[in-house]
């Protein structure tokens, strides 16, 4: 960890959080505030025949009720504008909003929402992924062809988008292969489950609105409100109080427009706080259900010659970022391996279920779980050790990726060797225990981002940024970078963040991109201040500017003990004249060039910018009688370029691994026949507890990327949940002899796999 700058950073927001004085969105109250509640469809697919709010309006304490009729008719969506903020004519999933109520108390609001009369004519629900695109399937969106969409989208009826990667000649490769292995995996959807259910409070003054929201992406929320309510962005201010986790579920536009419109109609501020059930059912960000068919041709020596894959991905009822995620899944189905011939397609299909959307490393863990099991099947057929199989196929510097990018210095292979060594690969284990391994990759996301840095009259520093802190500590680590540029300590800075009227634009707590992009912006802003300080110091010390350095809170002539002036003194001088103000954004590093002539459905990120590589090894114990799998130990090795804040980075690995274990073993959306969720409660949707999570060994491989973020770093927050389910799956089969091809690998499914007689792994 060469670039470690702050071995034990204490988070600026930590004291707020441990004392209980930090406010989250649900904790806020403003004068005159009402409470809001939503009326949702509660059926998967229906035509709205009649909607009558008369009885609800008559309830004492009700101030306003709004439906689609009360807001502009605007269709929105990132790549495919297929949805409105309230249902119009048809409801397409059980969590779709029909109306919103503002009332004096949460109880009255809920009561009034229930009193709204909704006459629904049931329509056939599309829930099965494989039959959804058959010609005889009912259409989820009868008017799909009229929707505005990204011109690169390939779509047709219930096929919301198709992305392909075609490279070389897959047919020829398969024909030349020594063996060809083909198999199929099915994964349930799952949830992000931040412990904070979301809350939104909107208050109008004049023609502008302030929205306090538990969003991960305040700028996207702002532009979404402006788009759907038809107002300029500068009349919408989104402030995020402390955010109680998001993991992707609080990305994109949330429920801000509805609450803003409700507050405007009521003429009073309105707050909506979700119950846990609502937090499971209403967000349009569920981890996607998937079916994965994988086929690999290998030579006798174990090198892969061809990959075919067909993925079917549940889009749910509306498309948020899912078409883009289909494209990502296609990249993950190739994986960080050298494969000359590739033919992969990913179909994102509409169903009458909750919309899918980014949940920590969207499509990553599920695809890696299937692919890495598939790779172990291939290795087994060849009689090769799984680690050796990966060693022979992983990408190296100079290799070409699935879409033609040429890899810079990377550490994929090192992560494999380190994880294998840390877990003790090959060591003898008691009966019923085994070790499995899985490797994966994930991109960084270069993008625009801005920050301002000032030095106050007393020499203390302030960073003002639009970046969003979701808990990872990425924003909390920004002072490390400013401090290094200015020769100060990180704790001499305060950060003002996640307020769209205060800081310049940032993409938000999404795509693990905060340090990558906003770190660059903070360094650029601090560098401007540095120049200003050096100018002042050169005058004052009558020294040549080039001979000066900023160090230990001083500007001094390099090497001199006497010729120096403190930054505080310089700041107090500047306070009377030219202020110390820096602003920065910096040029995002380029994404690698690509060869995608034969590919369709390309929506950006066709190549992986500054990709990160990682391997997890899992040691598990399987109880053959019950199918219960216990994870005893995980070794996680990650190449994330470099690590600048170890306490933050290891924290991401620990949390990601725990989430990965959950997705592997216990977390899955149970759907009824007609597509309704049967387990929207923490009692039935099981997260890992402290008693479940095993010891986790963390290792970082250094490989600073020339096209990475500051110091060559790469994104780190999402990847740690990616390879865990695959490593556990591969351990299960080695421990118990049967492969589990359904996710999550619940005791019942493991038990059934063990009981099945075919004995095939």
């Amino acid at each position, binding site marked *: 960890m060469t670039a470690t700058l702050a071995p034990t950073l*204490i988070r600026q927001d930590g004291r707020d959080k*441990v004392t*209980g004085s930090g406010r989250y969105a649900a904790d806020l109250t403003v004068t005159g505030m009402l409470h809001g509640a939503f009326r949702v469809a509660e059926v998967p697919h229906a035509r709205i025949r009649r909607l009558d709010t008369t009885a609800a309006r008559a309830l004492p304490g009700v101030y306003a009720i709004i439906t689609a009729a009360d807001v502009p008719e605007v269709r929105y969506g990132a790549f495919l504008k297929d949805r409105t903020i309230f249902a119009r004519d048809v409801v397409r999933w059980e969590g779709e909003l029909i109306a919103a109520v503002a009332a004096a108390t949460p109880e009255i609001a809920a009561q009034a929402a229930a009193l709204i009369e909704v006459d629904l004519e049931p329509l056939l629900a599309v829930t099965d992924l494989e039959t959804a695109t058959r010609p005889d399937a009912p259409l989820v969106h009868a008017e799909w062809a009229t929707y505005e969409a990204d011109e690169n989208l390939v779509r047709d009826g219930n096929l919301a988008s198709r992305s392909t990667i075609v490279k070389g000649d897959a047919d020829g490769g398969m024909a030349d292969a020594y063996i060809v292995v083909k198999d199929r995996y099915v994964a349930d959807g799952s949830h992000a489950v931040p*412990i904070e259910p979301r809350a939104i409070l909107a208050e109008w003054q004049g023609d502008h609105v302030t929205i306090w929201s538990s969003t991960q992406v305040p700028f996207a929320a702002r532009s979404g409100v402006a788009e759907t309510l038809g107002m300029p962005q500068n009349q919408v201010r989104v402030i995020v109080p402390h955010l109680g986790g998001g993991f992707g579920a609080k990305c994109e536009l949330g429920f801000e427009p509805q609450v803003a419109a409700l507050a405007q109609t009521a003429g009073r501020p309105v707050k909506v706080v979700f119950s*846990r059930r609502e937090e499971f059912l209403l967000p349009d960000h569920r981890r996607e259900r998937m079916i994965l068919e994988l086929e690999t041709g290998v030579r006798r020596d174990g090198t892969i010659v061809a990959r075919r894959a067909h993925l079917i991905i549940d889009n749910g009822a509306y498309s948020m970022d899912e078409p883009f995620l289909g494209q990502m899944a296609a990249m993950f189905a190739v994986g960080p391996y050298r494969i000359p011939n590739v033919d992969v397609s990913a179909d994102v299909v509409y169903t009458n279920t909750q919309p899918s959307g980014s949940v920590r490393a969207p499509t990553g863990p599920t695809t890696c779980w299937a692919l890495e099991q598939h790779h172990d099947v291939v290795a087994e057929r060849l009689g090769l050790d799984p680690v050796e199989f990966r060693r022979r196929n992983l990408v190296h510097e100079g290799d070409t990726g699935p879409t033609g990018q040429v890899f810079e210095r990377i550490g994929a292979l090192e992560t494999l060797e380190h994880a294998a060594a840390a877990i003790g690969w090959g060591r003898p284990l008691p009966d019923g225990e085994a070790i499995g391994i899985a490797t994966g990759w994930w991109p960084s996301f270069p993008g625009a981002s801005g920050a301002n840095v000032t030095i106050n009259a007393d020499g203390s520093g302030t960073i003002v940024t639009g970046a969003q802190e979701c*808990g990872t500590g990425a924003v909390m680590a920004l002072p490390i970078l400013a401090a290094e540029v200015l020769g100060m300590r990180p704790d001499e800075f305060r950060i003002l963040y996640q307020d769209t009227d205060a800081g310049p634009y940032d993409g938000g707590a999404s795509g693990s991109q905060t340090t990558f992009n906003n770190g660059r912006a903070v360094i650029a802003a601090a560098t401007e201040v540095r120049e200003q300080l050096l100018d002042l110091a050169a005058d004052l010390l009558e020294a040549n500017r080039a001979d000066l350095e900023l160090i230990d809170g001083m500007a001094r002539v390099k090497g001199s003990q006497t010729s120096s002036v403190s930054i505080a003194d310089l700041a107090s001088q500047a306070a009377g004249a030219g202020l110390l103000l820096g602003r920065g954004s910096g040029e995002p590093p380029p994404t690698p060039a690509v060869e995608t002539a034969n590919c369709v459905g390309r929506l950006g990120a066709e190549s992986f910018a500054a990709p990160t590589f990682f391997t997890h090894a899992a040691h598990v114990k399987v109880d053959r009688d019950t199918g219960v799998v216990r994870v005893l130990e995980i070794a996680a090795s990650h190449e994330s370029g470099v690590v600048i804040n170890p306490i933050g980075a290891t924290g991401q690995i620990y949390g990601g691994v725990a989430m990965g274990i959950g997705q592997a073993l216990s977390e899955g959306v149970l759907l009824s026949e007609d597509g309704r969720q049967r387990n929207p409660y*923490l009692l039935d949707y099981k997260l890992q*507890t402290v008693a479940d999570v095993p010891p986790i060994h963390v290792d970082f491989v250094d490989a600073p990327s020339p096209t990475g973020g500051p110091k060559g770093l790469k994104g780190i927050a999402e990847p740690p949940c990616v390879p865990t389910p695959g490593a556990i799956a591969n351990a299960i089969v080695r421990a118990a002899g049967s492969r589990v091809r359904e996710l999550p690998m619940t005791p019942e499914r493991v038990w059934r796999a063990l009981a099945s007689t075919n004995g095939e792994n």
Partner: protein
Amino acid sequence: MRYLVTLQVNRTSYPVELEVGRTLLSVLRGELGLTGSKEGCDDSECGACMVLIDGRPVNSCSYLALQAAGRQITTVEGLASGTKLHPLQQAFLEHGAVQCGFCTPGMLISATALLAANPDPTEDEIRAGLSGNLCRCTGYVGIVAAVRSAAAELANAD
């Protein structure tokens, strides 16, 4: 029907008028303005709302406010002494036990109860003691380490 009762929270008396069905959590967060205790589920499943009642950890979302009258209630706001953090709070900061912080109030309360009952817990005892508190961010690693370190600190202070 409303009852006038006095709640003793963090050594302060709060007279409040309450309906029978009100949960302690809603009164703490509402009438008393003590929003440190969080609501993660309202169903006794996450532990974010945990408070001490006469030293025992309780999910305040599933505890009637009226039942708490006459008892000593401690919330996360009552752990520090003035501006001096409790050793558990300090250890949570130093060990990376806090990320989003939404589970933190409940975790700290749970850990306080654990150390009061068992000042020198083993790792397994710590894990058992905190198993009613869900955290989605940390994988619990920093939390367990923080409790262990605070236990040592408290033992040295005695």
